[in-house]
């Protein structure tokens, strides 16, 4: 069953179509990888799904409910969580408070929000930093905090934007392990990442875009052998 479906979505900034006529779907329980060169529109797709940007045209459905006219804060409420490529920690709040801010979506009780936050902090391996102010965290932990905070809102679909960017190989591996753990807990995930090896290994299906348009959509095998993808990444000589 399709959890999320995009039908011909287009987003224009003035004359520039950052996303154009893109259609894809995400099945429940799968990891969908989105790849594309810099500036190809990956983050814009996330911003459209999470309603940070209004669509220029097209439709978005989540569990068969139309979502492209909902206010942005409702998106999280119906079960779509996201992280930001350029992390946005609640800087002067502690790690625990950051995660609690997410947990409050499903409860008004301080006690329950704290319990929930602590559960998730442990799941994400952030116990040691629980009382640290978010602004004092190094990048890998900030990225982890983005995920933890978003998990605290109990999403069914998680949008992860370049969780591994700026991390060294060991840190990347830890991040990937966390993402696998989240998937094994039953989460559906759309992930954007630049490291091909990671994307090929973790994704069930891959959507490749360039200049905002789809160039390939299918299994990692199919997509990595697709001539358009090779051209977009390596240039005409290799296609």
């Amino acid at each position, binding site marked *: 069953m399709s959890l999320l479906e995009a039908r011909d979505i287009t987003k224009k900034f003035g004359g520039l179509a950052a996303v154009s006529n893109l259609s894809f779907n995400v099945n429940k329980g799968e990891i969908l990888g989105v790849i594309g060169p810099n500036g190809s529109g990956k983050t814009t797709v996330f911003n459209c799904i999470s309603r940070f940007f209004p669509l220029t045209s097209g439709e978005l459905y989540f569990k068969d409910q139309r979502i492209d006219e909902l*206010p942005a804060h409702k998106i999280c409420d119906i079960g779509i*969580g996201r992280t930001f490529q350029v992390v*946005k920690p609640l800087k002067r*709040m*502690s790690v625990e408070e950051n995660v609690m801010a997410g947990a*409050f979506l499903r409860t008004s009780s*301080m006690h329950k*929000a704290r319990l929930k936050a602590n559960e998730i902090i442990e799941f994400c391996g952030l116990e040691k930093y629980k009382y640290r102010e978010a602004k004092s965290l190094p990048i890998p932990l900030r990225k982890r905090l983005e995920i933890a905070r978003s998990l605290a809102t109990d999403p069914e679909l998680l949008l992860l934007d370049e969780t591994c960017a700026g991390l060294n190989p060991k840190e990347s591996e830890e991040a990937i392990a966390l993402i696998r753990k989240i998937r094994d807990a039953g989460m559906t995930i759309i992930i954007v990442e630049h490291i091909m090896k990671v994307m090929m290994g973790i994704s069930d299906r891959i959507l490749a875009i360039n200049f905002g348009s789809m160039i390939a959509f299918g299994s990692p095998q199919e997509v990595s052998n697709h001539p358009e993808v090779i051209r977009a990444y390596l240039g005409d000589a290799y296609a």
Partner: protein
Amino acid sequence: MKNFNLALKILLVVIAVILPLVIKAPYQLHIIILIFIWAIIGTSWNLLGGYTGQVSFGHAAFFGVGAYAAGLLQFHLGVSPWWGMLLGPFAAMVISLPIGLIAFRLRGPYFALAMLALGEIFRLLFINLAFTNGAKGILIMPEITSKMFYYYVGLSALALTIGITYLIVHSKIGFYLVSIREDQDAATSLGIPTTLYKNLALLPSAFFTGLAGALYMNYVAFIDPNIVFNLSNISVMAIMVVMLGGVATTWGPTVGAAIYIILGEVFRTTLGSANVLVFGVLVCLIILFLPNGIVGELDMLRGFLARKKEGAAGGVKI
């Protein structure tokens, strides 16, 4: 540490309650009553500006409307201005609502500017309207003149303001307000309806500032538009009081109000006409060297010491 804190708070309350039985001098009581009024304004401003990050340059609008609500009841209807303590806060909330609903939707300095305009619009409006008795202002004959009475009314109003603000800040709402201040996009991504919650901070902020205004009318017995809608003496002073005492702290605005009023009085009586200059320089120095305000710096110091003792990071109190 917990017991010590509790004991300190009980001691504070006891002192506050018996103080006017010890200090009987009207002048000293007058100063304390002014401090109460300013502490209420500062605490209200702090909920919106300090915790929620929505800086208002026009809290005089709420203060003035609260004051006029009390004054006009007496002026037009002969109703006791004490009813203004009820009407004033609600009137202030009513005028805050359209500003909040419109300006909070926009990003950027629109709210700050809208509030700045609101304060000035009300000042000019009230100067020119016959209904408000124009620039002549409103004079009432207070039924009660005992300073001790106003002391207790002021103390109760301040206790109510701090109490309610504390409950708001230490609840889910408080978490949401601080989240909005720290990063509005992140807050939205966590399902927080930011416009709604900013309004949830604005309404009580306007309410209690209106309460302070109504109390001021009852106590001082004379107001005019240039006094109660004053940009520098009310709107900007509200900000200064909070910055001096500590932004986004429970006691900061009260401490700031006390320092501001007391220093202001001391300088006014000892330095003559140089007082404004010296006062201004001193405030600049304090803000420069204690950027977190006095209570804020103490909190940091306490956090620092606690961390040393426990060998772990202490939680950030919001």
